């Protein structure tokens, strides 16, 4: 589904991603981990075509179609959805109107999604993310995901700053979504090793200094908990 080949990417002439390779098959779940500032979020922004994120070398293919150079709108239309670590606030626009703007979906369905996410109806009449708690903002991201029905989901630290109950709800919904849409894939960034209790990744990647230094199954987590990232760095050297 997603195929990244020797990607080099820079922001304002600073090289951040250095020769990254990644392959995600249809219906698979991948977990991306790594120390802060290694370029995980940058990778997500590059995939979704954020302006100022320049691809110096390499290619990104989505369903065998080259997507570097496409606008964020064109990429999202292909079926790639990114949840933001810090979702933006838009004053003056109510959530319910915004959701109707995304897709011509019936109110009944929106209310149904709200029920699943344990969101009150009044929440929909508030301005977009304005004055929301961290959990509410993340729930809003998942609500949009359910409405847009993407093929590739990129979750950027969806579990950061959330209480256990909210994490459980969110991952339950994501698991259900992947069960129903069997061809959809998932790529998550997380710093939390406990994440494997909520979701079962097929592959876990360790990223450092702009490239993936190790990829393996769930056993990586145990080593990570025991020795930290230094173990992988030494091994790589």
């Amino acid at each position: 589904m997603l195929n990244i080949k020797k990607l080099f990417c820079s922001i304002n002439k600073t090289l951040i991603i250095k020769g990254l390779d990644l392959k995600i098959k249809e219906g698979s779940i991948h977990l991306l981990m790594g120390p802060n500032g290694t370029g995980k979020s940058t990778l997500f922004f590059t995939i979704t075509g954020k302006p100022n994120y320049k691809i110096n070398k390499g290619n990104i293919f989505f369903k065998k179609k080259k997507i570097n150079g496409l606008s964020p709108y064109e990429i999202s239309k292909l079926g790639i959805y990114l949840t933001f670590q810090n979702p933006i606030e838009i004053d003056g626009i109510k959530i319910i109107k915004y959701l109707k703007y995304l897709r011509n979906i019936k109110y009944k369905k929106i209310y149904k999604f709200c029920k699943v996410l344990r969101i009150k109806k009044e929440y929909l009449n508030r301005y977009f993310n304005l004055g929301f708690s961290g959990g509410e903002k993340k729930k809003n991201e998942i609500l949009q995901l359910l409405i847009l029905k993407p093929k590739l989901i990129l979750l950027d630290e969806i579990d950061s700053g959330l209480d256990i109950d909210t994490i459980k709800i969110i991952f339950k919904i994501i698991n259900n979504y992947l069960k129903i849409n069997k061809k959809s894939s998932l790529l998550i960034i997380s710093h939390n090793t406990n994440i494997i209790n909520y979701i079962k990744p097929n592959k876990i990647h360790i990223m450092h200094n702009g490239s993936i230094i190790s990829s393996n199954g769930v056993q990586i987590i145990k080593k990570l908990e025991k020795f930290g990232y230094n173990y992988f760095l030494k091994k790589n050297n």
Partner: protein
Amino acid sequence: MKKLIFYKINNKKDINISFFNNKYLYIKNKIKENIFISYKYILKKNKYVFNIKKKSKGKKPIRLIINFIYFNYVNILINKKKIIFIIDKNLNITIKENYILKDIYNFFFNFFNIVIIIKDKSKVFYLKYKNFTINNINYYYIYQKKNSILFLYDVNLYENISYNKIIIYNIEKYTSNYVYGTYILNKNQKIKNKIIIHDYKNNCKNIQNYIGIYNGKSNIYLKGLIKLFSNTIKNKSYQNYKNYILSNKVKLNFKPYLNINTNNVKCSHGFNLGEIDNNIIYYLQTRKINLLKAKYLFFLSTIFINLKIKNKFNFIKKKIKKKLITIL
């Protein structure tokens, strides 16, 4: 045609004051539950004086619509008149301008003076909005008495050539006025506006919030002056102008002024030339919203934050949305 026009203005809920071709005056619902209107016409000066008085107790809000109806205008190109509203104490009134034009030449010029005297503890919402592409020279003189509140919505969307002067006199203590302006202009629209506020007494509050989005060859001159006279204490005055320019040919001339002749007051003024927030645009684009629609949503949100329009003027939101689509 007359039937059609009457049908348009025949709203049972509202008080309608209609001027037909500068000659005839028609008032619908002159007497309401708790209000009545008396009027005088001074022929020589082409001056109308409306006295809005309270009939019984209670603070029920009243909506008043001034209809300017013109049709088959051939001879007179300039229409000139003076309208005076004297609003009694303890009233809550919404005044809305409404233009109904039929077969009017492009050269038609609408010139009138509107004077509003707001007495003690009254609240007035005034919507200054022209729903047609007509040319205007309008003067507004507003006198505020003790504890009165004015909300003035200055919406410019379709005016071709327009010169407006809004002068607010805070002649007594504890008055407050809020001027919310929205300018969305394109093509060759030319607007010259002056908003002048005089504070003569203590504890007055003046707030001016303007937002503008300009495209094409539009030309705007805006002067906002707040004048605080000597011996005024604890007055608050704020001016804020926020603008977005979408074309190189736009001409802007903004002059925010504060004339302070006293101490112990809070005042500030600012003029911003804003850029589109690229993070918002990017966020929206990642949600299958194309660039044009993302820009539209961005501007819509910035306008609605600024405008703070009440439910009674909800129709203006639709007009703004319509105009915004054409400008982007």
